[in-house]
């Protein structure tokens, strides 16, 4: 019986070594070690042996069984590895082929600029105020210290709907409305929106464009506060090393009035085609809110003061992205709009 056992062992080990696939190996396992296999049969047959031989034989069978199992397991690891390698080879793909496209769109460049400015001021504690695009002459002009017949009305040729109603020529009426609604309380707002002027559309003019304005009213608001605020804006929008300068100007709704230039972000101030060799780029108009504007909205101009500023997102986008023709913003050419896809933080 022992000889029989050794022969079986040798047979089994040969079979294991001959198996070339995991499947064949499993067949060998079933054939030799399974419930119906010869080794199990041998164990079952032990009952016929004399009682004193049974332990010795039992131990021997178990040794053989373990030896076969060990050889088999070792072979299994090897064959499994082979199988995996085979599978991987078969599954290999050309990863340079393009992926399934996920179609995404993006913000219009003006929205991109406007939201960037909004967020920048929101972080400084401003709220966003909006108002109607069709306005009363009162809010668009009169409440802003531009009575009928004022020479400065020439600066803005308007689209009138009736004698007293027009398409707003700036977003300042939102300021006038907000002031009126706030009834003398402090204000800190940003007003973005569409505006309209009687201009023929060309590379630098558009009868419809956007504006974004800011207004702060409170106790003892100073011109230095305006300058500090605009400096933060310029640095965040155009780069940390931007410097600003103020130049005197005139707007009927502010006194003093200024225009703000930033040091050229392209050449840093040494002079180039972007800054027309001056080193400076005009970005926005601003000033201290005119007392007439405060008083007309019910504010005591002796107690409260404020500053306001306004700029054109078109101009900022044109400067920032090098766009040469304002009409691109309103043509909605996919080849233009889709260029503003990537993010910039």
């Amino acid at each position, binding site marked *: 019986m022992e000889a029989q056992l050794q022969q079986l062992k040798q047979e089994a080990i040969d079979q294991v070594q001959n198996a070339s696939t995991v499947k064949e190996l499993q067949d060998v396992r079933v054939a030799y070690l399974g419930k119906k296999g010869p080794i199990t049969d041998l164990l079952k047959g032990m009952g016929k042996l004399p009682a004193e031989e049974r332990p010795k034989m039992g131990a021997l069978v178990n040794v053989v069984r373990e030896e076969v199992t060990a050889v088999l397991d070792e072979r299994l690891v090897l064959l499994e590895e082979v199988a995996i390698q085979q599978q991987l080879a078969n599954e290999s793909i050309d990863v340079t*082929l*393009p992926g*399934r*496209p996920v*179609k*995404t*769109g993006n*913000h*219009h460049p003006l*929205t991109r600029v406007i939201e960037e400015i*909004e967020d920048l*001021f*929101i972080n400084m*504690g*401003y*709220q*966003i105020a*909006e108002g*109607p*695009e*069709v306005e*009363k002459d009162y809010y668009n002009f009169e409440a802003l210290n531009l009575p009928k*017949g004022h*020479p*400065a009305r*020439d600066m803005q040729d308007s*689209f*009138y*709907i*009736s004698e007293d*109603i027009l*398409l707003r020529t700036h977003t300042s009426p939102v300021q006038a409305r907000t002031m009126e609604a706030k009834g003398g309380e*402090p204000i*800190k707002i940003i007003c973005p929106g*569409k505006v309209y002027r*009687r201009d*023929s559309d060309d590379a630098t003019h558009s*009868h419809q464009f956007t504006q974004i304005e800011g207004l702060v009213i*409170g106790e*003892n*608001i*100073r*011109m*230095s*506060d305006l300058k*500090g*605020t605009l*400096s933060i804006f310029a640095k965040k929008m155009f780069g940390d090393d931007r410097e600003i*300068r*103020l130049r*005197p*100007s*005139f707007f009927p709704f502010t*006194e003093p009035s200024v225009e703000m230039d930033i040091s050229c972000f392209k050449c840093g101030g040494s002079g180039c085609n972007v800054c027309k060799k001056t080193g400076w780029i005009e970005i926005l108009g601003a000033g*201290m809110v005119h007392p007439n504007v405060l008083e007309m909205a019910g504010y005591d101009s002796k107690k409260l003061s404020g500053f306001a500023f306004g700029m054109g997102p078109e101009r900022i986008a044109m400067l920032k992205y090098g766009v040469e023709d304002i009409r691109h913003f309103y*043509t*909605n*050419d*996919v*080849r233009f709009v889709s260029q503003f896809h990537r993010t910039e933080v």
Partner: protein
Amino acid sequence: MLVSTKWLADYIDTKGIAPADLAEMITRSGIEVDAVIDRSHGMTNVVVGHVLERVKHPEADKLAICQVDVGEEVTQIICGAPNVAAGQKVIVARPGAVLPGGIKIKKAKLRGEESNGMICSLQELAIEGKLVPKAYAEGIYVLPEDSQPGADALELLGLNDIVLELGLTPNRSDAMSMLGVAYEVGAIISEEMKYPEVNYVSSSEVAENVLKLRVEDMDANPMYVAKVVKNVVIGESPLWLQQRLMAAGVRPHNNVVDVTNYVLMEYGQPLHAFDYDRLQTGEIVVRTAHAGEKITTLDDQERELQPHHLVITNGQEAVAIAGVMGGANSEVHEGTTTVVIESAYFNSASVRQTSKDHNLRSDASSRFEKGVDPNRVEAAAERAAQLIAELAGGEVLHGSVKVDELDKSQKEVVVSPDFINNRLGMKIPLEEMTSILTRLKFDYEAANGLLYINAPTRRQDIQIEEDIVEEIARIYGYDEIPMTLPVGETTQGGLTPYQAQRRIVRNYLESAGLHQAITYSLTSKELAQSFALESAPVTELLMPMSEERSTLRQSLIPHLLEAATYNVARKADSVTLFETGSVFLGETAEGLPHEEEHVAAVMTGKWLDHSWQGERKTVDFFVLKGIVEGLVAKLGLDQFVTFEQAQVDGLHPGRTAVIKLAGKFVGFVGQLHPTEQKKRDLKETYVMELNLAKLVTFSLEPLVYTPVPRFPSITRDIALVVERGQAAGALQQIIRSAGGKLLKDVRIFDLYEGDKMEPGQKSVAFSLTYEDPERTLTDEEVVKAHSKVLKALEEQGNAQLRG
């Protein structure tokens, strides 16, 4: 305003500051210098020549051979100008000369004859044709007889000059004169300026004896001064005067007219000269025009006047439109011997209105309408009288003929130095402030901790304390203002919920594959109402610039379709655009149109293209509907929104759904009607528009978590046979309402309309999910619920289970 720095030097010593630096200083302290113009344009070798002889070119009718004394030699120059003549002093560009535009003058042969240079017109020296005196407009310019051959002609013509072009804001009308600019420069560089000296000998004859004056409208014309000059000889002005006028952008005419223009530029006070004899009546009456009264102005235009227009008359007929333009009937001409010089103060609003009505803006009207200096009206008349006496040889009659009720007082502004410093956020010492006021030539007194300032009348813009703040700050320098931030209560910044939601809508649509467009609000009357979600009156412009931009839009779709056509015409294989923006409907109680924010989209062409794996899809109804469904789900409105088959003007009658929110119409999605597509050169195109305001302001319960189910759900699939016209959405609705509490979800997973069906029938397959959050469902419970569903489908939807 064009400021010749050579001319300016008459009034102020700029101490050798380079014009470009001066320009920068002026810009930084108040008036923007738009351009610094070098009138020499880099020209060289341009001299005075004396034409000794002129003979016709034997080979060319239009050319002349001239022998010209250019100082160092007599040389031959061929000239094509019709007016060249022997004896003239002319401008000669010598060989080697460089003229504007880089033109180099060389020795040449013209039709066989040698030519050593060029005799120049003023245009060839870069003077605009409209500024060249009429006599020389078509030929060469003739210099004064006493010019020395060989002398530098640029110097003689005043072209060695730098002109500063000022971009004046409406408040700084004081700088519309050389004297005003001199004041400004004086304040900036802290230098005294000097006025021109005015003295002349007047005749014994008294002006009032030859001219009568009456002003009927003292509001519109509170001051009128007339000077009478007799025995003038009209002729060309001296070169210095001509060249100063040309530098200032004014065309020289004759000595009298040139003087009035010169003083206008010098003092900022518009003047007018009448021919006394052509006035005929020896009288000037200023009155408002009669209705229908006509006048032919100096530009040869006949103009009809209205009763609110102020006119100068000779007591009978109009001889000038006050402050705007003179009349042809009283114009100074070659034979004029006696002139009346008018210097007046006309009300700015009146001139502004008149000039606007006639669409006629002149150097005079642009000054009057901003307000001239009341204290220069008479001074300017005297200055003109002096110059006319000097240059036209006239005798100035004694005294002025004058009506004067004009307030010439200075405006007092009282301001405290603290106010100035508080407003600026600075600590400028009082002495510094008073020094600035002195430089500005503002009278002031410092007392009781206050500054009592009398602003000069030339500075009409100085009215309130804040104006003084600006004056101090701009001269002190805006660079000196420190940078601070507002102090006081900190405020919470942020978007309103509406604004935040609008951003979410945009971001969603972009993630879903659409680009944001911005189109015009103004459209044609024809397009204004197409695709509008509701019918409302349109808002039209009073005076549109074009029919195309005459009316405010009521839908975003027409312009989005224009954008689609534009892109398709440029070979875009896919157009997916959306826009958020206002539409304008009817009228509110305030009289303004009702502005409503909408969101709309247009899609056409390729949607998915992953061709190497065989996945391709063009945009269809369900692509756009899916995007809309995703949008309403993002806003939490999916359970309130329904889609219903409907017909909308301009859309495909079988491929359009209206969208309802809680049963109320909020928009639509559908295919553009094939005839509309064709009209716009578009292939299959889909559009949607939604009332964005209604979507984002819909009131929702706050989001609360539902426990994730702990018990397994059971799925039952059913295939139904129904009539082809039966809407799947309706079947789904039947299932939902019949399924009871246990039915969690119903999804359509198959639609079959092929040959295996009876004609007129289709098969729709649904997958139903049953679930009980509290426990494991029993088979009996599911069977019970499911059979209710099947029964309802049969009864309400006429649907049979497919065998």
